[in-house]
C-alpha cells in the first residue's frame, strides 16, 4: 500500500516517506480496531463455553454418583444422600405447560388486536402496558403471588372449579388445596411469559405483507377470516417460535416460582398439590446445602436445566429467524 502510493506522494506536497508513515499508522490503527472488536465479539462464544464448563465441573460429582438415575429417580432425600431430580423436571415441564396453555391464546389475541384491529390511538398505550409486564422483576411477581394470587386462587378459583363445575373428583383438582401449588406457579408463569409471546407475535404479524391481507379481503373475506386464513398461516412458524421463546423463559424462571409453588419434591397429578421446579429447587436448597454431594446435586439440576433451555432457545430462534428472513412478497 505504501509502495503503490509513493510516486503520487512524491509529486504532491507531502514527502513520500512522511506520507508512507501516516498510511502505515492508519493501517495499524485499523488493524488494532479490527482485532479489538473481534475480541469483544469472541467474548460471547467464550462466555457460553465457560458457563458450560463451570456447570460441568460443579455437576460432575453428582452425575458420577447417581448416574442415569439422577434424571429418572424421584427420590430426593438429602439425609440419605439420594438425589433423583425427576420431580423437579416434572414440575418444571408441567408448570411451564400450564403457563403456555393460559398465555398463548391471550398473547396471540393481544398481538392480533394490536396489529390488526385496535384503533391507532389505542395501540401505543396497550402495547406499552403489555411490554411493561416484562419489566416487572421476578421477585415482585413472587411477592404479589404470595399475598394476592395464591389466596385468590385458593378462596375463589379452586372452589369455582370444584363446586360450580364439579371437577373436584377429577385427578387434576383432587386433594387438599393449601394454596402454594403447581397451579399458582403455572398462573404466575403465564403472566410472566405473556409479554414475550405477544411481542414476538406482533412482530411477525407486522411482517406479513399487505398484499396477503388485500387478496383475502378482495375475495370477500370478513376481517376475522382474513386474519385467520391469510395472516396467521403466513406468520405461523414465527408465532410458534414466540411461544417456544416464552417456554424458554418459563422453564428457567426462578424467584416467582420458588415463592408460590410450595417446594415439595413429589410428583402429584393434582394441580393443587405443591411441587418443585428445577430452578426453584436450586434456589431453595442452595443456602442450606452443607455436604459437597448435595451442592453438586443442585448444580447437576442446573446442568439439566441449562441443556433443556439451550435446546428450546435454539429451536425458537431458528423458527423466528426463518420467518424474518423469508422473502417479502
Amino acid at each position, binding site marked *: 500500500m505504501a509502495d503503490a502510493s509513493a510516486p503520487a506522494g512524491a509529486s504532491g506536497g507531502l514527502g513520500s516517506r512522511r506520507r508512507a508513515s501516516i498510511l502505515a499508522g492508519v493501517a495499524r490503527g485499523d488493524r488494532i480496531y479490527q482485532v479489538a472488536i*473481534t475480541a469483544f465479539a469472541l467474548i460471547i462464544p467464550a462466555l457460553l463455553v465457560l458457563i458450560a464448563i463451570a456447570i460441568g465441573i460443579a455437576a460432575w460429582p453428582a452425575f458420577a454418583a447417581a448416574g442415569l438415575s439422577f434424571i429418572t429417580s424421584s427420590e430426593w432425600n438429602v439425609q440419605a444422600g439420594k438425589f433423583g431430580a425427576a420431580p423437579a423436571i416434572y414440575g418444571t415441564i408441567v408448570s411451564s405447560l400450564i403457563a403456555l396453555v393460559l398465555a398463548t391464546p391471550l398473547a396471540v389475541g393481544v398481538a392480533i388486536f394490536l396489529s390488526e384491529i385496535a384503533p391507532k390511538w389505542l395501540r401505543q398505550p396497550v402495547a406499552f402496558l403489555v411490554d411493561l409486564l416484562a419489566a416487572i422483576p421476578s421477585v415482585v411477581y413472587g411477592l404479589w403471588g404470595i399475598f394476592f394470587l395464591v389466596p385468590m386462587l385458593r378462596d375463589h378459583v379452586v372452589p369455582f372449579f370444584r363446586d360450580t363445575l364439579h371437577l373436584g373428583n377429577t385427578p387434576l383438582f383432587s386433594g387438599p388445596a393449601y394454596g402454594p401449588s403447581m397451579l399458582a406457579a403455572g398462573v404466575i408463569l403465564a403472566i410472566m411469559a405473556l409479554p414475550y409471546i405477544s411481542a414476538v407475535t406482533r412482530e411477525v404479524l407486522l411482517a406479513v405483507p399487505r398484499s396477503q391481507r388485500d387478496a383475502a379481503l378482495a375475495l370477500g373475506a370478513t376481517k376475522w377470516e382474513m386474519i385467520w386464513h391469510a395472516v396467521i398461516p403466513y406468520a405461523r412458524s414465527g408465532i410458534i417460535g414466540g411461544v417456544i421463546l416464552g417456554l424458554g423463559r418459563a422453564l428457567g424462571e426462578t*424467584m416467582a416460582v420458588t415463592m408460590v409453588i410450595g417446594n415439595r419434591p413429589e410428583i402429584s397429578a393434582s394441580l393443587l398439590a405443591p411441587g418443585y421446579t428445577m430452578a426453584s429447587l436450586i434456589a431453595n436448597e442452595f443456602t442450606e446445602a452443607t455436604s459437597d454431594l448435595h451442592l453438586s446435586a443442585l448444580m447437576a439440576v442446573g446442568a439439566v436445566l441449562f441443556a433443556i433451555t439451550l435446546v428450546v432457545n435454539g429451536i425458537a430462534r431458528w423458527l423466528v429467524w426463518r420467518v424474518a428472513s423469508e422473502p417479502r412478497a
Partner: protein
Amino acid sequence: MSALRRRKAGNIVMLALTYVAAVLATLPLLFILFHLLQQGASTLTPDFFTNMPRPVGEAGGGMSNAIVGTLILLGIACIIGLPVGVGAGLYLAEKRVGALAMTVRFLSDVLNGLPSIVLGIFAWQFLVRPFGRFSALAGGIALGAMMIPLVTRTTEEMIRLVPNSLREAALALGYPRWRTSLSVILRTAMPGIVTGALVAIARIAGETAPLLFTAFGNAFWSTALDEPIAALPLQIFAYAISPYDEWHAQAWAGALVLIVIVLIISLAARHATRARFGSAAD
C-alpha cells in the same frame, strides 16, 4: 343469506374476543401496581431510605444498605457489560454476514435466553468457590454477563440505522476506518445505544436468582467488593418468605422502590429513543 349472516356474526364474536384478550392481558399489571401502592406506600417513609434493617419488633427499619448495594452491583455490571456489548455490537454491525458474525449473533440470542440462575452458577463456580466467600464482585460480574447480549443486539441495530452515506463521507475525507467507526458512526448511534443500555440495566436491576449464589445478601452495611453485599431484590425475597408482618410490610415497600426504579429507567429509555429517532424506532 344465513351463511353470510353466520360469517358476519363469527367475525364480530372473534374480534370482540381480541378486545377481551387485550383487557385480560393488561389487568395483571394494573393489579400488581395497585397492590404495590396500597401495601407499600404507608411503609415508605424517608427513614426507609436512610435506616438499616432492624430486628423484628423494632419500628422504623429501612433498606439503605440494600439500596446502596444494588447501585454498586449495577455499577460493576455496567463496567463489564457495556464495553463488551458495544464492542461486540460494532463487530456484528460491520461484519453483517460473515460466518463468525452469524455465529456470534445466534449465540448472543442463546445467551440472552439462558435462565439467570445458570449465570449465577457460573459466577459461583469461578468467582465464589475458589475464594471461599461470596462477594459483590461475583454478583456484579454475573449481572454484567446478563447485560452483554442485550447491549450487543441494540448496539448492532442502532448502528445499522446510521445512514451509510455518513460513513462514506467520513472515509472520503480521509478518516481512518477506526476513527470513522468510533467518532462518527458510534457517536451518531449513541442515543439509541444509551436507550439499549438503560433497558438492559432496568432488566438486571431486579434480578435475584444469580445474586443468591454470588452477592448473597448482607444484614450489615458493606460496600467492600470482596465481601457479601446486600441487594434490594434479595432483601425483598428474604422478607417476603419470612413469617413476620413487619417484614412483609418492608418487603412491599422495597418492591415499590424497586419497581419505581425500574419504571423510571424504562420510561427514560423510551423517551431517549423517541426524541432521537421519532417513531421509526418503535
